[in-house]
């Protein structure tokens, strides 16, 4: 594609987003658990657990203990900053122009004053990160969540969000535009940041994965409820109120 073709394509995509964005947002969150592939999902869950206890957990622990906290914080900030273009692309596709603008200001501020994104100065002035992903874009376009899916390495997801996770490997423009080997920097930084997250939230993750009675069920419940809450902008389903009413029957 020539540049003008690219621009026209992008404009068409944005127009499509603006039209379809009205379709999906603000629906009541779905309820219940839709897990027809539970047997297969449980196998992947066991694989992820084995991977975590054999490699990911111990490696994160070594990273957390070996690298001083201030250095780790710079890595987290850098990874978050370099992933911002992907969030902005998604927010444009969702026709959420205020969020896209917010994250764009954040990108400018952290890349300049924050020395290439090493310091998150934007958060200090009220420009905290507004996260999103392509799964949310699909939601805004009107796609339902589908079935519960456990992805290898990535963990809990849904049919829709699994597609989103894969597509998000391609939504960061920097992975096309940075010269030579540098185009791999956003992905690499993202992976290192995952180790940092695993270390920071170790006790929560261990509780969930190893100390709960039935980790598969607990993680499914936690993922679906928090994801639905996130996508609906802070609403919870009515099923919860049916539970509460039971006490007053």
């Amino acid at each position, binding site marked *: 594609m020539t540049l003008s073709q690219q621009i026209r394509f992008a404009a068409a995509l944005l127009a499509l987003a603006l039209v379809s964005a009205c379709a999906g947002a603000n629906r009541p969150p779905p309820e219940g658990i839709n897990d027809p592939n539970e047997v297969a999902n449980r196998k992947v869950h066991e694989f992820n657990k084995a991977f975590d206890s054999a490699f990911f957990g111990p490696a994160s622990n070594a990273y957390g203990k070996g690298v001083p906290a201030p250095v780790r914080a710079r890595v987290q900030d850098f990874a978050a900053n370099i992933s911002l273009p992907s969030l902005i692309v998604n927010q444009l596709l969702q026709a959420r122009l205020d969020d896209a603008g917010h994250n764009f200001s954040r990108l400018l501020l952290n890349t300049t004053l924050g020395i290439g994104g090493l310091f998150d100065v934007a958060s200090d002035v009220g420009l905290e990160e507004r996260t999103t992903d392509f799964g949310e874009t699909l939601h805004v376009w009107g796609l339902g969540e589908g079935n519960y899916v456990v992805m290898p390495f990535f963990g809990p997801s849904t049919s829709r969000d699994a597609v989103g996770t894969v597509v998000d490997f391609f939504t960061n423009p920097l992975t096309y535009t940075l010269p030579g080997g540098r185009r791999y920097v956003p992905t690499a930084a993202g992976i290192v940041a995952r180790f940092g997250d695993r270390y920071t939230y170790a006790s929560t993750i261990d509780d969930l994965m190893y100390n709960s009675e039935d980790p598969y069920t607990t993680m499914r419940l936690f993922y679906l409820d928090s994801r639905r809450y996130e996508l609906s902008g802070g609403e*919870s389903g009515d099923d919860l109120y049916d*539970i509460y*009413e039971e006490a*007053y029957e």
Partner: protein
Amino acid sequence: MNDPFHRAIHRPTRRLMLAGLAASALLATPLPALAFSGDDARGLIEKVIADIQKIIDSGKSDAAKLKDFERIFERYGDVPVIGQLVLGADGRSASAAQKRAFAEAFKIYISHKYGRRFREFIGGHIEIGKVRKVKRFYEVTTTTVFKGQAPFEVIYVVSEKSRKFIDMKIEGISLIKSERAEIGAMLDKRGGNLDRLIADLRKM
């Protein structure tokens, strides 16, 4: 009885008697309860948060802090209702004494479990946001802010009837809903023996 003198004497007495009767009737009928408003729900959660902050900043030993968390549940939480909701269908066949014992054991278990989490809140601060009425409940939204981390929401669900909180939703994950699954699985592992579960919960 009809002479004016008699009437003049007795009218005030009768009036007094009637007034007395009305007053005693008023005292005997229970006063209509003052409505529990959204502001009252907010006030309750303000107290909960002030107490949580106090515990976090107290510098007490971990064991003492967990004991204090238990007290928060006791004072501001509707412990019997929380117990009943968590037990759900499994509680239908339980005796009244078992239900009471379970609610008490659950209170200890949950305040320790969540108390351990709240200890990580050192350096953070909690703000109260909007209050929303849903059916017979109020949702009080709070935001916990830590430096260098995305703020996260905890919503307290307050019952209009008991005027205490009955649930906490952390980023959309309900304590009642997740513990209902957890307690259900624990009960299954103990062959449905509620007494054994109660004894185990007290030790967790």
